[in-house]
C-alpha cells in the first residue's frame, strides 16, 4: 500500500506539473513550427468544384446558412460549407489566432469582430480586399464599419451586419410625466432622478460596467459624446484632455449613484437587459438586439419602449455610438481560385438582396445606407428608420493592431475609476501613459 501511494503520488505530481506548461504551450506550437503551406494551387479551376468553408459564431437567427444555400444556387461550381464557431467572441478570436498563425487553410471566409481587422491585418493573416472593390461600391456602405475594417490604408474585411450603442427608455413613464427623452447627460441624470420609482421601477439607468470589452464600448460613448477621443488617425494618444476627464467623472458619478443597481460594475449585456425587461429601470444602454428582447414574449415592458441616441456630454456637441458588428474576411493563405470564389461569396453576402433578406428574416442591421429606406426592411423593422442617424455616426473603437492591449488598459483603469479605487483624472493620466507606451513599443 505504501509503495502504491508513493507511486500514485509521484505520477499525479508529475502530471500536474506537466499540465502547467502544456496548457500554455499548446497554443505556442503552431507559432514556433509553422505548418507547410497546403494550398491546392495545382488543381485546375474549371475542372473541379470549389468548396469554400465559411465560419461564424453561433447564429441564432439561422440566416447565414440560408444565405449560403442561396449563394450556391446562384453560383454552380462553388459549394459553401458553413462552420459554426464558439459563441463567445474571445473564444473565436483564440481559435482564429491558433489557425491563422499556423497558416491553416481549413477556413476560407470568416466572420470577424469589428475590432479584429487591424490586428489580423497587421499579422498578415487576411487578404487585403481593396483590389476587389471599387470606391463606388464601398461608398454605398455605412462609413463607420468600413473605417473599422481599414488599417494602414488597406481594407481587410467587409461589413456583414452592424451594431451600435443606443439608449432605450420607458415611453409610458416619460409620456405620463410629460418629459421628452434626454438629449444631454444632465437631462438623463435629472429624468432618472425624478422618474426612478415610477411605474414599478427601482433604478434610473442600467448599462454594462463589468471589467470587460463592453465597458470600453460604454465609456467611449461618454468620451466621444463629450468631445474627447482615444487615438488620432495617425495613432497618437489624445486621451489626456479635460473633456475625457469630465466624461469619466460623469460616468463614475452615475455608476456610484443610487440611480443604478449596486452590482452594476459586474453587469454585462444580459444582466442589464434583464433588469430593464423586468420593468425595473427607466433607461437602458444596450445594442439594437435588446429591441427584440424588450418587445418579445415574457418582457414586462412590451410596447412601452422607445429608443434614442446616447446623450451628449456637457462639453460635447454630437451624440456618440460605439460600433459593434461582424465582418467578412478572407484567409490570406488559400489558393487564388478559392480567393476569387471567396470574393464572390462576400459580394453576395453584402449585396442588397442578401442584406434585405438578413434584415427581414433575422432582424439584422443592414450595412448599406440605402437599405434604411427599403420598404421590406422597414416593414419588418420599423424602428430601423430612427436608428439611421445613430449608425451613420457610429464610430469604431480605436483602430489599432494592438487594440486588445489598449482595451485592457482602458478596462482596468476605467473600472478602477468607477469602483472608486482612483479618481477620474488619475485614470486618464494612467491610460494616456500606458497606451502611449504600448504604441511606442509597437512602432519599434
Amino acid at each position, binding site marked *: 500500500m505504501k509503495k502504491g501511494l508513493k507511486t500514485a503520488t509521484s505520477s499525479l505530481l508529475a502530471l500536474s*506539473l506537466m499540465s*502547467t506548461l502544456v496548457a500554455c504551450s499548446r497554443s505556442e506550437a503552431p*507559432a514556433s513550427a509553422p505548418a507547410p503551406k497546403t494550398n491546392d494551387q495545382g488543381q485546375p479551376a474549371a475542372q473541379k468544384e470549389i468548396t469554400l468553408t465559411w465560419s461564424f459564431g453561433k447564429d441564432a437567427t439561422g440566416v447565414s446558412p440560408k444565405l449560403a444555400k442561396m449563394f450556391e444556387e446562384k453560383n454552380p461550381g462553388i459549394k459553401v460549407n458553413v462552420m459554426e464557431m464558439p459563441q463567445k467572441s474571445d473564444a473565436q478570436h483564440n481559435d482564429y489566432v491558433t489557425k491563422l498563425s499556423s497558416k491553416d487553410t481549413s477556413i476560407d471566409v470568416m466572420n470577424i469582430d469589428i475590432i479584429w481587422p487591424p490586428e489580423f491585418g497587421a499579422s498578415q493573416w487576411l487578404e487585403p480586399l481593396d483590389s476587389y472593390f471599387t470606391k463606388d461600391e464601398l461608398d454605398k456602405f455605412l462609413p463607420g464599419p468600413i473605417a473599422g475594417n481599414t488599417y494602414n490604408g488597406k481594407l481587410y474585411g467587409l461589413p456583414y451586419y452592424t451594431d451600435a450603442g443606443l439608449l432605450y427608455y420607458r415611453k409610458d413613464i416619460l409620456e405620463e410625466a410629460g418629459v421628452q427623452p434626454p438629449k444631454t447627460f444632465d437631462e438623463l441624470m435629472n429624468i432618472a432622478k425624478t422618474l426612478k420609482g415610477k411605474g414599478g421601477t427601482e433604478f434610473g439607468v442600467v448599462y454594462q460596467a463589468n471589467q470587460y470589452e463592453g465597458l470600453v464600448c460604454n465609456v467611449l460613448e461618454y468620451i466621444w459624446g463629450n468631445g474627447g477621443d482615444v487615438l488620432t488617425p495617425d495613432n497618437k494618444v489624445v486621451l489626456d484632455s479635460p473633456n475625457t476627464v469630465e466624461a469619466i467623472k460623469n460616468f463614475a458619478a452615475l455608476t456610484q449613484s443610487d440611480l443604478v443597481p449596486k452590482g452594476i460594475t459586474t453587469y454585462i449585456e444580459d444582466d442589464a437587459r434583464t433588469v430593464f425587461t423586468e420593468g425595473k429601470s427607466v433607461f437602458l444602454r444596450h445594442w439594437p438586439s435588446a429591441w427584440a428582447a424588450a418587445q418579445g414574449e415574457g418582457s414586462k415592458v412590451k410596447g412601452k419602449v422607445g429608443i434614442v441616441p446616447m446623450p451628449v456630454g456637457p462639453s460635447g456637441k454630437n451624440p456618440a455610438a460605439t460600433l459593434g458588428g461582424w465582418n467578412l474576411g478572407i484567409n490570406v493563405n488559400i489558393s487564388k481560385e478559392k480567393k476569387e470564389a471567396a470574393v464572390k461569396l462576400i459580394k453576395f453576402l453584402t449585396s442588397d438582396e442578401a442584406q434585405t433578406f438578413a434584415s427581414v428574416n433575422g432582424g439584422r442591421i443592414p450595412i448599406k445606407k440605402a437599405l434604411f429606406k427599403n420598404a421590406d426592411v422597414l416593414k419588418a423593422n420599423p424602428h430601423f428608420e430612427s436608428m439611421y442617424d445613430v449608425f451613420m455616426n457610429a464610430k469604431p473603437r480605436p483602430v489599432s493592431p494592438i487594440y486588445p492591449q489598449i482595451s485592457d488598459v482602458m478596462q482596468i483603469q476605467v473600472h478602477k475609476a468607477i469602483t472608486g479605487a482612483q479618481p477620474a483624472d488619475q485614470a486618464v493620466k494612467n491610460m494616456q501613459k500606458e497606451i502611449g507606451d504600448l504604441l511606442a513599443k509597437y512602432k519599434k
Partner: protein
Amino acid sequence: MEGNSAVMTKETAAAGKKLLNGRRQESLLAYVLVAPAMLTIGLFALYPILNTIWLSLHELKLNMPYLGKPFVGFTHYAALSGDVRFWASLWNTLYFTFFSVLLELVLGFAIAILINRSFVGRGIVRAAVLVPWAIPTVVSAMMWKFMFNDQLGVINDLLVKIGILDHYIAWLGSRETALWSIIVTDVWKTTPFMALLILAGLQVIPADIYEAAKVDGATRLQQMIRITVPLVKPAVLVALLFRTLDAFRVFDIVFVMTGGGPANSTETLSMYAQTTLMRYLDFGKGSALSVITFVCVLLISFFYIKVLKVDIEKR
C-alpha cells in the same frame, strides 16, 4: 573473458556468460518496454516545457510579424520584475491559494472524520459529499456567479432574510468581497476532493490500534492526537500538495466569475499568462509568465516534499 577462463572451470564460465547475456537481454527488454512511455513523456511533457522556456527568452509577437523572433535573453523576466500588474496577480494567486487550501483542509478533515464513522445512510452521505467535485468547474462557477448576483442572487436573499445583512451586496462587484467570493466557490467545489483523500487515509488505519489504545485507557482526544493525526498525515500532505498546486494555477473559476475584475483585483498568474498569450499575442512575455508559474509550482512541490516530507517511508 578468454583469459579468465583459465582460472575458472569451463562450466562456471559458460554459466557466467549465460547469466550476463540473460541480464543484458533483460535490461535491453526493459529499455524497449519503457521506450514508448519515455517517448510520450518527452514529446508531450518535456518538449513543451523546454520549448516554453526557450520561447520566453525570445521576442515573439504574432501581430508584429516584421519583428521576427529575436533572442532577447532575460529581458521579459526583467520587465516583469518591474510590472505592477504581475506582482498584483502573483499576490492575488498566493492569497487565493493560501486561504482556499487552508479552508479546504479544515473542512475536508472534519467531513472525512464524520463520514469515516459508521451510521445509517453513510453510503448516501458519502456520495452526496462528492457532488460538488463531480460538477464541471465552469458550471459551478456560473452557478455561484448567479448566486452572488446583487439583485437576483440567493445569497443576498438568504442573508437579508435571516437578518445578517440589511441590504443587498454586490459580492463580485467590490474589491473587498470579489476574491473571497471566488475562494468560497473554490472551497465548495474542492473540499470533497480533500475529504475523499483524507478519508482514504483514515480507512487504512487498523482498528486494533484504537482498541489497544482504549485498553490502555487513552481518551478520545488522545486517540485523535496520538493515533489519527500522525497516521493520516501522509494522506493529508498528499492531498494538500495537489490542492495547493491546483489552486496556484487557478484560471477557470476566476475567468467565469469576474474575468479578473473588479479593477483587476482578482486576476491570477494563469489569467495574466493566458491574456498575454492569446489576447495580446505576445508569446515571449506570455511564455515567461508560464515559466514563472511553472517555477512557483516546482518550488511548492519542493517545499512539500523536502520540508514537510510528503513521503511515507521517511515519516
